C-alpha cells in the first residue's frame, strides 16, 4: 500500500451565510478503501461530496487527491467521478454512448472506447446492452450504467451520493452486495454517502458519522457499533433503547444509574468521568439483552431484571420482543435469539433479562 492517501482533507469548511454546512473537517482515506459518510438529512454530506468533486469551492481548508492539491482545479479535470443521487444518465444517448461520453471527451480512439465500454458493461453485469436506450432500463440497471459510466474513466475516487436511495428495499439489498463486490474487484476508492446505517455498516471499510457539518466518529463499522463515541452515534447506529438517567454510584469504571422512569441500570460512561448525581444518557442494544427463564442462565450478567412480555414483534431474523420492567414499568426492547428458544413468548408472560456492563453505553447529558 502506498503511503499517499487517496483523499486528504485538512480543515475544510463551507458556510452558507452564518450557517456552517461543513465545519473544519480533516481526515484521510487510504487507497482502495470503501469509505462511507453516514448522517441524517441536512448534515452536510452532499456539500462535502460536491467540494471533493469540485462543484463547490471550500471557504477554508485544502482537499488533496492522491497528494495533488485540488484548489482551483475544475470538476472536469479532477480524478474523481461522481454517481449522482438521481443518476443523471443522459436520456438523449444510448447506454453505450452514456458510458463512452467521458472517454470521448478524453479523445481516446474509437476502437479503444468500444472495447472499454463493452468490458465495463460486462463487469457490471449488463453485457451487450450498448444500444439500449436509457429509458428501456430498470431501476437497478440504470444504477449499474451510472456506476459504469463513472468507473470506465478509471478515476482515483468514485463519489457516490446516496445512489441506492431511489430503489425499493429488495433491490437496494441486492445492489448493496453487488456494489461491495464491484469495489472489491476493481479496487478503486469509493466515497459513499448515505443516511442508511445498514448500507454504511455492510459496505464500508471506514465509516464517518456526520452531524451538523462535523464528524462525530470516524472508524471501522465494528468500532461504531461496539464503541460509539457519542450519544449521537449510539442513537444513530442501531435501534437502541435510550434512557435519560442519573448516576447513583461508581463501581470501578462502571456507573450504577437509575433511569428517570426508575429502572436501575449499569454501564460505562464515555468521555469525562462521571460523578454521582450527574445526568447521563444511556443506550442499551436490543441484541445485547439476554433472555432467560432460569436465574442460573444469567450468571454471567452484571444486572438482571424481572420483566413481563408486552408484545412480540415478529420480523424473521430481526424479531424482537417489547418488555416492561415489573418494578418500574419501564419499556425495553430485546432481540429474540436466533435459535427460536423464545419464539413462543406470550404477552403477560414473565421473563428474566440479563445485561453486561460493557454493552450499556452512557454519555453525559447535554
Amino acid at each position, binding site marked *: 500500500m502506498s503511503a499517499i492517501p487517496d483523499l486528504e482533507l485538512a480543515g475544510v469548511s463551507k458556510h452558507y451565510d452564518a450557517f456552517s454546512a461543513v465545519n473544519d473537517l480533516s481526515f484521510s482515506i487510504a487507497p482502495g478503501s470503501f469509505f462511507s459518510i453516514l448522517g441524517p438529512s441536512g448534515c452536510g454530506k452532499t456539500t462535502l461530496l460536491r467540494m471533493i468533486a469540485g*462543484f463547490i469551492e471550500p471557504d477554508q481548508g485544502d482537499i488533496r487527491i492522491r497528494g495533488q492539491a485540488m484548489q482551483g482545479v475544475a470538476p*472536469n479535470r479532477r480524478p474523481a467521478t*461522481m454517481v449522482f443521487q438521481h443518476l443523471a444518465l*443522459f436520456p438523449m444517448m444510448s447506454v453505450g454512448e452514456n458510458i463512452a*461520453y467521458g472517454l470521448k471527451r*478524453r479523445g481516446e480512439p474509437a476502437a479503444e472506447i468500444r472495447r472499454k465500454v463493452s468490458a465495463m458493461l460486462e463487469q457490471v453485469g449488463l453485457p451487450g446492452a450498448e444500444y439500449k436506450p436509457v429509458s428501456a432500463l430498470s431501476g437497478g440497471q440504470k444504477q449499474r450504467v451510472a456506476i459504469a459510466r463513472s468507473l470506465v*474513466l478509471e478515476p482515483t475516487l468514485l463519489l457516490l451520493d446516496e445512489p441506492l436511495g431511489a430503489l425499493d428495499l429488495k433491490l437496494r439489498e441486492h445492489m448493496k452486495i453487488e456494489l461491495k463486490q464491484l469495489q472489491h474487484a476493481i479496487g478503486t476508492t469509493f466515497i459513499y454517502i448515505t443516511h442508511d446505517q445498514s448500507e454504511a455498516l455492510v459496505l464500508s471499510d471506514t465509516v464517518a458519522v456526520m452531524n451538523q457539518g462535523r464528524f462525530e466518529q470516524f472508524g471501522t463499522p465494528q468500532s461504531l457499533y461496539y464503541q460509539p463515541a457519542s450519544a449521537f452515534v449510539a442513537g444513530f447506529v442501531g435501534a437502541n433503547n435510550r434512557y435519560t438517567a442519573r448516576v447513583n454510584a461508581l463501581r470501578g469504571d462502571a456507573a450504577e444509574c437509575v433511569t428517570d422512569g426508575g429502572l436501575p441500570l449499569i454501564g460505562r460512561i464515555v468521555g469525562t468521568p462521571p460523578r454521582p448525581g450527574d445526568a447521563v444518557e444511556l443506550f442499551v442494544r436490543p441484541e445485547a439483552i439476554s433472555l432467560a427463564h432460569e436465574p442460573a442462565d444469567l450468571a454471567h450478567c452484571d444486572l438482571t431484571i424481572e420483566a413481563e412480555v408486552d408484545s412480540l414483534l415478529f420480523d424473521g431474523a430481526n424479531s424482537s420482543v417489547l418488555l416492561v420492567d415489573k418494578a418500574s414499568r419501564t419499556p425495553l426492547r430485546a432481540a429474540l435469539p436466533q435459535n427460536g428458544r423464545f419464539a413462543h413468548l406470550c404477552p403477560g408472560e414473565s421473563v428474566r433479562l440479563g445485561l453486561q456492563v460493557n454493552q450499556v453505553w452512557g454519555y453525559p447529558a447535554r
Partner: protein
Amino acid sequence: MIRLLLTPTRLGRLLPLWLLLAPALIWLVGLILLPHLDLLWLSLQTRGDGGGDYTFGAGNYLTFFDEPLYWRTFARTAVMSLIATALTLVTAFPIAWYLAKIAQGRLRQLLFVLCLLPFWVSEMVRTFGWILLLQSNGVIPHLLQRFGFTDQPVELLYHDATILLGLVYSSLLFMVIPLANTLDTLDDSLVEAAYNLGGNGVSILRDIVLPHAAPGIAAGTIVVFMLTLGNYLSPVLLGGKNSLWFTEQIYNQFITRFNWQQGAAFGFLLLILSTLLVWAGLKLTGQSFGEAMRKS
C-alpha cells in the same frame, strides 16, 4: 348503413361531442377554411388581355415566375427571414438560459415581465421607436457624431441590417419563451454529470443542452420564421423603399393595383413557401411538429 348511423341512440350519444366541438369547428371552417378556399378560387381567375373578362387558369402563378422582380423579392424575403430567425435564435438562447437556469425567484419574474413589456405597445409604435433612434437626425447618429465616431450624422435606416434588427427585436419573445420552457426542464445534474465526466462548455452545449432543447428550438424557430416571413410593418418602415419584402408585393396587388386575383396567388405562394421550409427544417433536424409544439 346511413340509417344505422343515425339511429336515435347513436345521435344522442354523439350530440354532446358535436356541441363541444362546435365553437372550434365554426372557427376553423368559418374563419380559416372558407376564406382560404375563396382566395384559392380567386387566385385561379386570370384577367384577360383586354382587361374585361376573367378565365379560370394558373395565369397569376405564371406571372410570378415570368416577372423577375416578383420571384427575386420572394427569394430575398425567404433568405432574410432565415437569417433573422437564426439571429433571433442566437440572441434568445443566452437570454433563455439566464431566465431558466440562473435567475431565481423575484428576479426571474421581473425579467419575464421585462421581456413582455414591449408587447404592451403596438408593433407600429415600437417600430417608430426604432426610427426615432436610428434616423439620420435621431438619437444614435447624434451620439455617434458627438463622441467622434463619425464626422457627420449617418443614416442608419433603410439598410438590410436595420430590417434584420427590427425583425429580431419583434420576434425575440417568441423564441425566448419556448426556449426557456424547455431549458427549464433540463435537469441541472445532467450538466453537472457531463462536466464531472470531463465535458467542457462547448461539448456540454452540443451533446446535452442542444439535444434537450431541440423541441423548444424547433417550436421557436417555426413561430419566428412564420412571423418574420409574414411581417409587413418592420420591413416596410425600417427598410423603406429598399425593403423589397414579399408581403409588400401582396399589399400592392390588393390595395394599390386592386388586382385581388394576383394578390391571392402571391398569398398562396407565401403559404406554400413557409409550409415547405418548415417541413424541410423539421425533416432535416429529425423533429416532429407535434412533439415540438407539445414540449414547449
